[in-house]
């Protein structure tokens, strides 16, 4: 690899840097050919035993079906899907379900939504079109990293990926911080102004070292360019001016060719060229020596790539398990060790050895016992969240919440039992795509997310909510309930359609009581019941 010429361990300068990128001794980890889910079961059980924590039992089939579908394809099951799954006695039904979902069109749609938020949330932009294409062919994560940081605007394969940089190029501090946070799990922004007060790993040298890789990147009329000259300098807290080294976050320093001297004439010529390209709407020429490309090569170099692998493993873990093995996910440093260090090591090694295969990793993550546990603790104290002994309760992303609402408000007759799997999926995709306008009303959850009162007001008093979710047409759930004379049957159907499960006795009793009190106008009573269930926490969360 070309970059190895420039890789030089600056051992004396940075021997104190103590990022825990050092892998555990490979011999101490479970064998590489163990299935991912078994590895998770092993290490999570080991830790629960050490903590003397009892896990909750496995979630009921129907609830686990809902959880898995929301996580993999971003929509809940239809009534027929849920009832058929509950009735299926095939012992391998769960494994078969996961394989089928990962191969379905909803998987790419939903993973693109998730990934787009992960990559672009703070920037206001989107790389969704790129992601759909990349995820369709299960493009390896290292390749996606390359596309997102270096993508050529006119390359069909990489089309749109460079939006990741373009959206942040006006603020190189932000670009530096977010590339480090997202791809390396290391948020160095505190070190921008001062050495980190708690974390010895992070000094101003690290922040500006990372910034150096972006220091020559600029925007030229909507195109990302990179110069062949320029150095990042900064003031230390002591007021001393320093020129930043080309320093990767792990403490590896790179040499770079001598910086090109620019005469006034060179600068003038450069400006003229850039102005012309801007006018012609063309991309600036590539630099001879791209520092951004060096960053990508360094992050992916053998021996350095573990941080890159751990960051995405940890992020995906957090997505499916409610919190990271390292949490917060952008604080991977010595003072914030993982809850399950061997597990993270093993998963990262497996991810690298299998070509940064995201699908394989996701597939493994959702097959574990810990993923499948009930989210309800019947009694006793909550075990520490780091034990992963209880299934997590996670707010749905706007797109998934809107999909839940819209699917739930659709008559079950819209998905008859005799329908082919393919037709059903197409029809469901149609409903999900029509739900995206509602999705815009909801906020994207971030760590510490709180549901706003604006959302509750919208759901309570919004005209669109009534017209879209409480319609009484024959294609709507309310239409079906009104056409179902037997109340017990209607209530049963209501819960299966909205919550993907049968109602509990207490729920039947409460709703029967409500309906009885409203005999004079049952259609309206049903609309209240549907509203109450659609707005309940059960619909708002994946649990």
């Amino acid at each position, binding site marked *: 690899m070309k970059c190895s010429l420039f890789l030089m361990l600056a051992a004396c300068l940075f021997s104190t840097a103590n990022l825990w990128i050092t892998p555990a001794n490979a011999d101490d980890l479970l064998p590489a050919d163990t299935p991912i889910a078994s590895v998770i079961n092993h290490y999570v059980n080991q830790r629960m035993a050490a903590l003397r924590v009892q896990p909750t039992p496995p979630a009921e089939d129907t609830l686990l079906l809902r959880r898995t579908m929301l996580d993999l394809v971003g929509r809940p099951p239809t009534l027929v899907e849920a009832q058929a799954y509950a009735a299926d006695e095939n012992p391998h039904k769960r494994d078969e379900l996961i394989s089928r979902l990962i191969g379905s069109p909803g998987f790419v749609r939903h993973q693109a939504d998730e990934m787009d938020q992960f990559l672009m949330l703070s920037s206001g932009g989107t790389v969704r079109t790129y992601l759909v294409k990349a995820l369709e062919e299960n493009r390896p994560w290292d390749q996606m990293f390359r596309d997102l940081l270096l993508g050529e605007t006119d390359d069909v394969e990489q089309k749109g990926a460079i939006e990741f940089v373009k959206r942040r190029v006006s603020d190189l501090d932000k670009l530096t*911080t977010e590339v480090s946070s997202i791809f390396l799990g290391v948020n160095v922004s505190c070190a921008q102004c001062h050495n980190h007060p708690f974390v010895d790993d992070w000094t101003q040298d690290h922040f500006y070292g990372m910034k150096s890789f972006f220091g020559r990147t600029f925007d030229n009329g909507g195109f990302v360019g990179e110069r062949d000259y320029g150095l990042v300098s900064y003031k230390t807290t002591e007021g001393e001016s320093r020129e930043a080294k080309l320093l990767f976050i792990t403490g590896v320093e790179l040499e770079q060719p001598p910086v090109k001297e620019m005469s006034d004439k060179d600068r003038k010529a450069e400006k003229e060229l850039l102005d012309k390209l801007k006018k012609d709407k063309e991309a600036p020429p590539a630099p001879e020596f791209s520092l951004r490309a060096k960053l990508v090569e360094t992050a992916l170099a053998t021996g350095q790539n573990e941080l890159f692998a751990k960051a995405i493993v940890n992020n995906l873990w957090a997505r499916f398990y409610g919190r990271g093995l390292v949490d917060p996910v952008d604080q991977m440093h010595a003072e914030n060790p993982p809850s399950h260090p061997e597990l993270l090591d093993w998963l990262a090694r497996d991810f690298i050895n299998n070509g940064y295969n995201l699908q394989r990793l996701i597939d493994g993550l959702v097959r574990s016992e810990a993923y499948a546990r009930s989210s309800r603790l019947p009694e006793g104290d909550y075990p520490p969240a780091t034990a992963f002994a209880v299934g997590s309760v996670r707010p749905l992303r706007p797109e998934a919440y809107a999909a839940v609402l819209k699917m739930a408000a659709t008559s079950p007759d819209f998905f008859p039992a005799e329908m082919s799997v393919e037709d059903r999926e197409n029809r469901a995709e149609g409903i999900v795509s029509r739900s995206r306008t509602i999705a815009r009303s909801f906020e994207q959850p971030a760590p*510490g997310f*709180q549901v706003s009162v604006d959302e*509750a007001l919208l759901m309570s008093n919004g005209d669109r909510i009534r017209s879209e979710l409480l319609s009484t047409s024959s294609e709507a759930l309310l239409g079906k309930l009104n056409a179902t004379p037997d109340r017990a049957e209607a209530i049963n159907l209501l819960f299966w359609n909205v919550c993907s499960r049968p109602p509990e006795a207490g729920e039947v009793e*409460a709703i029967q*009581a409500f309906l*009885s*009190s*409203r005999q004079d106008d049952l259609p309206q009573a049903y609309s209240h019941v549907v509203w109450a269930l659609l707005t309940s926490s059960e619909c708002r*969360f994946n649990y």
Partner: protein
Amino acid sequence: MSRTPRSKFCGSPEHAVSRRSFLGAAAGAAALTTADMTVLDSLTQPAMADELKRQGKHVILLWLAGGASQLETWDPKPGRPTGGPYRAIPTSTPGVHISELMPKMAQRLQNTAIIRSLNTGNGSHGDAARIMHLGRRDEASIKYPDLGAVVARELGQADAKSPDYVAFYTATEGRGNAYGQAGFLGARYLPMFLTKGNTPENLSALEGLSDIDHKERAALRELLSSRFVQGRSGESLGSHNEAYARVRGLMSSETLFDVSQESDAMRDKYGRTLFGEQMLIARRLVEAGTPFVKVSRAWWDSHGQNFETHLELVSELDHVMACLLDDLDDRGLLQDTLVVTLSEFGRTPTINGSLGRDHFAKAWSASLSGCGVNGGSVYGETDEDGQTVKDGEIGAGDLFATIYEALGINHRKDYYVGSRPLPLTNPGTAPVKEVLA
């Protein structure tokens, strides 16, 4: 926290009996779940600041969007090449002069402190507006809460019936720079943001849905939802039912936004302009307990025709602000209500070829009134042409520290994001003691 299940099904007479039977079932089922409602996000129940909350302080921020000229308001330079056509007039404080465009405020300076020495270092609308909303630069990975969100958090009641942060911005110019930001405090502290008129969206029940229906439906929702919450825990879970629990209370605050509830005389006093009516609503909100109201007036960006623009806008500001201060004072609210005038920046002393003034963040002014500030005082000084700060230079963080201290909020207080402590204002900032009485 314990919660009384709200299952007050007010049955109409003809259904009284059957509803009672539903009530019984609902109450029984809900009772089971009460204990589990304790699993709430700690942010919704800030344990601290309770003492402060009892003090009942408020803020009304007059956001002068686009950048008001300090020379035509608080820091006139009559007779200088930069002075423009307007004179300076004496005020109720001997020796202190302000622009002749503010005759009413000149007579009422006893409750107002003027700060003439802001140097905030950023002259682009978007970035500067964010700085003056957050009191600092937005950091790449940390989303800071804005002034209103912090005040709502510190002074608001978790279960308040009136909204705790309301922002008016009906003009379109510059609105995108002034959206509320709750940042790491979470959506609970986002403003009710009014852009279309003087009444918030979704605050009244839809036509055809009676109040009883609305209430009973909400009770049924709570019953079903609390069954779900039982035995479950999640960072965001509590906030969901909390948000719904606030709906009915907030709906009852709708009348606060209705100026027709005020006498004609009072409405005439404020003036029947959008700005005047929003200010009157701000007073109504504060009176009902809302900790933070922002009323925006746009668009002060007078690159051309600066003097015509300011004749109109400053005159209106003078009238409405004076009226607000009088009204607050009459009601005994002024001692607990801080009224702030602020922009993203001021305007250049140098008058450009279009008789305009451009963006200028190096030496400009703001004002603080009420809430125990040192009334009639002037802090800081610019040079004779207003080009630089000669004395008492402060930045956005110092201004925010001063605002927090005036409200009794310790500006060094830390919030935590993960294990990272984030003080309310950046290290190195300090309140201006001279402004605080």
